[in-house]
């Protein structure tokens, strides 16, 4: 698996888009994998009764997917130091979650990537990920 090194990362470069189909299976399996049994993440009847249109992603999964988005691009050598997410509209089952990202800054060894995860209703999560890369060998 390819891994990026410090010298390969440029401020302003853009990460490839990642699009995830939020099937009910994705919503439910990630909720359970994050040990979150809140019914709105797996029981569509309860979700609707509470005013949601369907089951939706839990926040622990949003954090996990943001991390995956960046490490898919950065490779196994990168180390994630910080994830700051501002939460927006729900990501409902049946929707599609698309991530875009841009490298915006570097401070010492730490690079910051701005990430935006959009669904059809708007921004589901926006924020920054700070990470380090292996030095060029």
């Amino acid at each position: 698996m390819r891994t990026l090194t410090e010298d390969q990362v440029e401020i302003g470069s853009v990460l490839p888009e990642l699009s995830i189909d939020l099937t009910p299976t994705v919503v439910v399996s990630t909720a359970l994998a994050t040990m979150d049994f809140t019914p709105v993440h797996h029981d569509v009847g309860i979700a609707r009764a509470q005013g949601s249109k369907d089951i939706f992603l839990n926040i622990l999964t949003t954090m996990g997917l943001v991390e995956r988005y960046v490490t898919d691009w950065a490779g196994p050598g990168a180390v994630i130091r910080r994830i700051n997410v501002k939460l927006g509209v729900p990501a409902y089952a049946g929707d599609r979650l698309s991530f875009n990202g841009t490298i915006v800054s570097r401070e010492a060894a730490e690079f910051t990537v701005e990430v935006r995860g959009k669904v059809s209703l708007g921004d589901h999560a926006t924020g920054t990920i700070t990470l380090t890369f292996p030095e060029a060998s």
Partner: protein
Amino acid sequence: MTEPAPMTEPAPMTEPAPTTAPAAGPGSALDRELHELADKQVALGEMRGSPSVNPVNEPMIRHWLDAMGDTNPAYLDQGVAPPAMIQVWTMPGLRRDVKERSPVDDMIARLTDTGFTGVVATNCEQTYHRPARLGERLTPATRFSGLVGPKQTALGEGYFATWNVTWYGDGDDPVAEMMFRILKFRPRQRASEKAPEKAPERQEPKQPYPLRPAVNEDTAFFWEGVRKGELRIQRCSDCGELRHPPGPVCPSCRSANRTHIVSSGEGVVYSYVVHHHPPVPGRETPFVVAVVELPEGVRIVGNIVDCPTDAVGIGMSLRATYRAMDDELILPMWAPRET
């Protein structure tokens, strides 16, 4: 639904506000009380929970990676957990009985009790000091960091509550920390403001509701009020007579000087019907329509919602609630007033 534990996610949902929601607003008695409680909770400092039931382990990591679709081999190769998995280790899971006390709970409960029933998570920030290692048990420690508000938000008046969790590893060193912020708000059907970022139901384009009121210069104030979550009653500026439905001229004194009062939002069923047939456009049957008598002395027609049809009766106490029928129209409705 019970309030989520501090470390689980608050679902973006709203519940009806209790009727007797005390007046909030900056500097009000309630506002002072909430901030005093917040200060007390902050002063409690960090409260430690029990170590995680499961140590950091390969099956849970593998399961998590599979679910996320994350193929990064580094974690299992190096015997560490993915950083973003940090909160998973100390989730209560289905063992709700072991929910631990934290300084956050009292604060959230008090907000809910005072009418700030809606909850939506706004921020989640995690910092990872070092990877959590296989075999290690993590211990969470939670502190309440502060209450900000009241703020007028697109969802309604509310308070932002923030807390921090630090996870300590086997060596009692901090492995990761998290800042989590929620907005606790008094739900109101949103007015014509721009679609708020965090209004789940707002972004779903609704079918235009077919039963629209005609509005003219004599009635516009009423519908403007409804959009602001106010039930306005026309009042003659000269003789003070209240009047609903409103009109251009005071029938008592001929004055065309009009103003309005904002009703208390309470009412009593004066009469009602349960509509079964024929089908009504934009409505599901059966539904209840009532003539509601207000303590201010006028009557108004509206639907009774959040109540089984056979529980409705003349004399029943109601409180006003506001429902968005589509992206533009909000209608005042009535819900049973809890005793």
